[in-house]
C-alpha cells in the first residue's frame, strides 16, 4: 500500500513553556488498573515452560521461544557466543536446511524476529493462525537438532566480525558506550558487549559453540509463549508432539554475581565517530524484581521520557545546551542501572549540561513532584506498558519476558497498578537511596 512515495513530512512538536494546569485529568490510583490478558501456563515433562494466551480478534498467531541465556552467560575469552548462536539458529537443523526457517515463515505471509540481549535470547514469529503447527515444527527442530558444522560456524563468525567492524566504523559513540559499560559493570560477564570482542570471536571453536548450545538451548532453559487465535486443545496436542521428546539439559550454570562499579573516567574519542563532546552518567539502582523498581521507573519517565520531561525541556528546549539526550533504565538480570547520555556542541556546554542534570536530580531528592507531573509521567508510562501487548507478537514476547523475569505470572495482572500507585513521597525516598554514587564517563574529542 501507499508507503508515502513522496511527501510524508512528520513533525514532532516541541514545547516551550513549563507551566500548565491540567486539572481536568483524572488522578491515578482511584481505580485499580488490572491487565486483562488470559493466560494458561504449564510445564512439559522435559521442563519446557508453555504459556498460551488466546485472542480471537484476528486470524493471527505469534510464537516466541525465549532461552534464558545471553551474553552474561559467556565465560571470559568466549564472548560473542550467544549472539553467534542466534545467527546459527537460522543456518539449519536436522530437517530444515539453511535459511529455510526464514523462507517458510515468509511464504505464509508471516514475519519473524530474533533478539539477543545481555540476559536473554528470543526468537519470535507471527503467522496466519492456520500455520501454527509449521512454527512449532521449525522451532522444535532447531531446539532439538541444530546443525553446528565447521562451515556454518566459520560463516557465522565471519558475519559477526564484519558486524563488529561495521558498528565500530559507523555508529557514533559506539566505543564510548562500550567503555561506559565496562565502568558500570566491572565483571567481564556483565560488562562486555553482546556482539562480543573480536579476538574472542576469532578464537571460538566448533566445540565451544556445541557446548554452549547443549548447555543453554534446552527445553528446561526455555519458555514457549503463544499468543493469538489458537485452538487450545489442538495447540496443546501439537506442542506435546513437537517438544515433549526433546531431551532436557543438565546442570545449567548460573551467571556470576555482579561486582560494584568503578567511579569515573574520561575517554578521548576519535572525532569521526564522536562528532561532539559529551558524557555518560550512570547509577546502579535497585533490582528489577524489587518493590523499589516501581518508583524508579516513574522517575525515568519524569526525567527522560517525552518532549515535556524535565531533562528534555531543560537541556534541549529551553537552554539548548545539549544537542542530544538519551537515557533509560537498563536491566541485566538482577542488575539495573539508570543511564543518561548527552552530547553538546562544546565541552563547556557539556559541563553545563552535566550540572543541570545533577541539579535536577537534587531537586527530586528534596521537593515533591506535582500531582499533574506525576499523573502525566504515569499516563505516558501506562501507554508504553500497554503497547507491550498491542499485537500478538508483542504479547508473546511480553509473556515470555515476564516469565524469565522470575516474577510469578499470577501477579502479572497487577503489575501495571504497582507502577501507577507510586506516590510522591516514595519518589523522594528512592531518589535519596539510589541517586548518590554516580558513575561518569566524559567523552572528549581528540
Amino acid at each position, binding site marked *: *500500500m*501507499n*508507503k508515502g*512515495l*513522496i*511527501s*510524508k*513530512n*512528520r*513533525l*514532532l*512538536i*516541541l514545547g*516551550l*513553556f513549563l507551566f*500548565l494546569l*491540567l486539572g481536568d*485529568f*483524572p488522578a491515578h490510583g482511584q481505580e485499580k488498573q488490572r491487565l*486483562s490478558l488470559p493466560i494458561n501456563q504449564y510445564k512439559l515433562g522435559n521442563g519446557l515452560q508453555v504459556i498460551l494466551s488466546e485472542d480471537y*480478534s484476528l*486470524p*493471527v498467531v505469534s510464537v516466541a521461544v525465549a532461552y534464558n541465556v545471553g551474553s552474561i552467560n559467556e565465560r571470559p575469552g568466549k564472548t560473542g557466543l550467544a549472539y553467534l548462536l542466534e545467527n546459527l539458529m537460522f543456518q539449519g537443523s*536436522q*530437517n530444515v*536446511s539453511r*535459511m529455510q526457517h*526464514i*523462507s517458510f515463515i*515468509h*511464504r*505464509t*505471509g*508471516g514475519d519473524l524476529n530474533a533478539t539477543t540481549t545481555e540476559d536473554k535470547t528470543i526468537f519470535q514469529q*507471527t503467522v*496466519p*493462525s*492456520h500455520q501454527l503447527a*509449521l512454527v512449532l*515444527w521449525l522451532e522444535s527442530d532447531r531446539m*532439538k*537438532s541444530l546443525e553446528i*558444522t565447521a562451515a*556454518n560456524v566459520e560463516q557465522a563468525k565471519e558475519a559477526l566480525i564484519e558486524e563488529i567492524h561495521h558498528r565500530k566504523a559507523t555508529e557514533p559513540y559506539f566505543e564510548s558506550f562500550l567503555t561506559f559499560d565496562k565502568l558500570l559493570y566491572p565483571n567481564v560477564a556483565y560488562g562486555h558487549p553482546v556482539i562480543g570482542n573480536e579476538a574472542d570471536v576469532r578464537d571460538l571453536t566448533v566445540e565451544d559453540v556445541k557446548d554452549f548450545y547443549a548447555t543453554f538451548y534446552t527445553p528446561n532453559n526455555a519458555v514457549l509463549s503463544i499468543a493469538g487465535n489458537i485452538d487450545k486443545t489442538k495447540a496443546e496436542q501439537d506442542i506435546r508432539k*513437537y517438544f515433549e*521428546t526433546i531431551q532436557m539439559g543438565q546442570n545449567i550454570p548460573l551467571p556470576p554475581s555482579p561486582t560494584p562499579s568503578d567511579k569515573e573516567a574520561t575517554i578521548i574519542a576519535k572525532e569521526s565517530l564522536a562528532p561532539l563532546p559529551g558524557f555518560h552518567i550512570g547509577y546502579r539502582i535497585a533490582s528489577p524484581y524489587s518493590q523499589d523498581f516501581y518508583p524508579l521507573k516513574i522517575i525515568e519517565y519524569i526525567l527522560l521520557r517525552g*518532549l*515535556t520531561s524535565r531533562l528534555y525541556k531543560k537541556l534541549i528546549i529551553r537552554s539548548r545546551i545539549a544537542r542530544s539526550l538519551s537515557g533509560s533504565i537498563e536491566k541485566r538480570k538482577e542488575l539495573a542501572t539508570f543511564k543518561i547520555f548527552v552530547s553538546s556542541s562544546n565541552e563547556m556546554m557539556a559541563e553545563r549540561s552535566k550540572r543541570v542534570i545533577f541539579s535536577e536530580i537534587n531537586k527530586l531528592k528534596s521537593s515533591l513532584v506535582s500531582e*499533574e507531573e506525576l*499523573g*502525566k509521567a504515569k*499516563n*505516558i508510562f*501506562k*501507554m508504553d506498558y*500497554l503497547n507491550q*501487548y*498491542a*499485537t*500478538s507478537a508483542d504479547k508473546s514476547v511480553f509473556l515470555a519476558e515476564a516469565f524469565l523475569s522470575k516474577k510469578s505470572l499470577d501477579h502479572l495482572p497487577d503489575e501495571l497498578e504497582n507502577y501507577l500507585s507510586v506516590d510522591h513521597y516514595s519518589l523522594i525516598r528512592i531518589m535519596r537511596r539510589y541517586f548518590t554514587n554516580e558513575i561518569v564517563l566524559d567523552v572528549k574529542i581528540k
Partner: protein
Amino acid sequence: MNKGNRIKLTVILPLLSLFLWGSPLLSQERFRKSPPYPEPLAELKLPEIKPSFLTNGLGVAVIQRDGLPVISLKVIIFAGESPSLKELPGMATLTANMLSRGVSYLTASQIEEIIESVGGNFSTYTYPDYSVFSFTFLEEFLDNALDLMSKMMLQPTFLRREIENIKRIMYYDLHEKNKDPEFVAERQLGRLLFRNHPYEKSTFNEDVIKNLNQADLVSFYDRYYRPNNSLFVLTGNINLQTAIRKVSRYFSTWRRKESEHPSLPPLEPYDKEKICLIDLPGAKDATIYLGNIVSPLRGQDVFPFVVLNQVLGGTHTSRLFMNLRESKGYAYYAFSELDFFKNCCVFFVKAKVRPEVTYPSIMEILREIEKITKEKIPSPEIEQAKSYLIGNFPLQIQTFDKLSSRISEIEALGLGEEHWSKYYENIMLVSSERVFEIARKYPLLTPVVVIVGDRNIISDHIQEFEEVFVYNNKGILQYTIKKGEDE
C-alpha cells in the same frame, strides 16, 4: 549472504547423513521429517467501514476493537500537497504542521503537555492527496483528546513566531534528509514521474519553505479545513453511537464550506527509459529507484498487479531479492512496491547495491521485469504470492494505529471495499493468465531510473548507459553524460 557455503553444504549434507546412519539423530519421529500441513485458512471478519455524517458534513467511521484501553483517532483532511499553489509547494505540509503550534488560549507547549498527559502520541502526515492527523491516547481521555483536536481544527492561531519556528524545523529536517539516499532517490523519482502535475508539489525541497507566509497558510486552512472535507476514523473499544455523540459535542460548531477540488489531470507514463544520477558524496552504496506511472489502475486490473508486484519484489523470497541478493550477491536488498494515489499508481523497484555493480544490477532488474512480460509466471508461484498476500493481510492491521491508517488510506483515496472486505476474494481470483495480461498492458519496461551514490565511485560503473542525466538534489538538471564521452 555467502553463496559459497550453501553450495558446500549441499555436498556435505549427504555425506554427513551416511556418516550418521544409525546414530540417535536419525532415529527421529516420522513427523519431524517434513513440515506439517496447514489447517484450513481461518476466517477473517472485517468490520464494515461506513462513515456516518454529522449535519455539518463531517464523516465519522468507527472500528470497534477491544483488548486495549486505547483509542486511535485519525482526522483526515481531503487535501494534501496537490492543491497547494503552484509557486508555493509545501503549503499543505506547513499548514498541517501549524495546527498543533498554538490555538486560542493554548500555546504550542501547552498543547504538547496535554498530548503527553493523556498518554498520547500525535503526528501529522501530508500526502499528495490528503493530510492526516494521527492521535493515539488512553481511552479514559477521549473527551480531553477530542477537545484538544477540536481546538486544533477550529481555532488554530497561525502565530508568525510559531510559523518561523516550524519553518526552521522543516528546513533543517529536509536539509538532513538530503543525506538519506532512499529519501533523495524516492523524491527524485517522484519529481520526474509527476513532472508538471499537481502531485509534483509534494516533492519540494528545503529552499521553498522560506516563501511561505501566514496569509498563505490561513487561506489554505480556510479553504480545506472544513467538516465536509474531513473524515474521522476512530479505532478502539467504542461504538458508533458514542463516537458520534462525542464528536458532535466538540465539532458541531465547525462550519461547512464548499471547497473546490479541481479535477486532477491524467498522468502520462514514460515511454522511454531515462537514467538519472544524483551525486551523494561519501555514500558507500548505490541506491536505485526505478519505476513508472501505472495509470489508471482501477477495477479488474488492480489485484493481478498486486500479485505481480508480490512475485517480482514483494518480499525476501520474491524474484528480485532471490536474484540480486541471494544469487548474484549484488544487492543488500531489492524489492518492488505499488503505491496508490487518487489519480494513478506508481510501480517501482528499489534496491541498494554495491556501486561497482550498478549497471549489471539495473540490467538484472530490467531483465526480471521483462521476463514477467514475456513468460507467464508459473501457477505455483502465483499461488505462493497469493497465499503470502492473504496470510499477511491481517498482520498489517494488528495495531489500532495501523488499522486506522489502512482505513484512512482506503477512504481518502476512494479505494473502497475492494481493498477491504473483498480483498481476500479479489486476491484469490487472480490467475496466472490475468497477471500475464496486466504485465503486457502497462509500461513496465520504460521506467525512470534514479541512481543515488557517490559520483566519483559510481561514474565508472554506469558508462554502458547511452545517456545519464545528472541532477542535483533540488531536482535541477546539471548535465548529461553520453556514452563514450568524458564528463
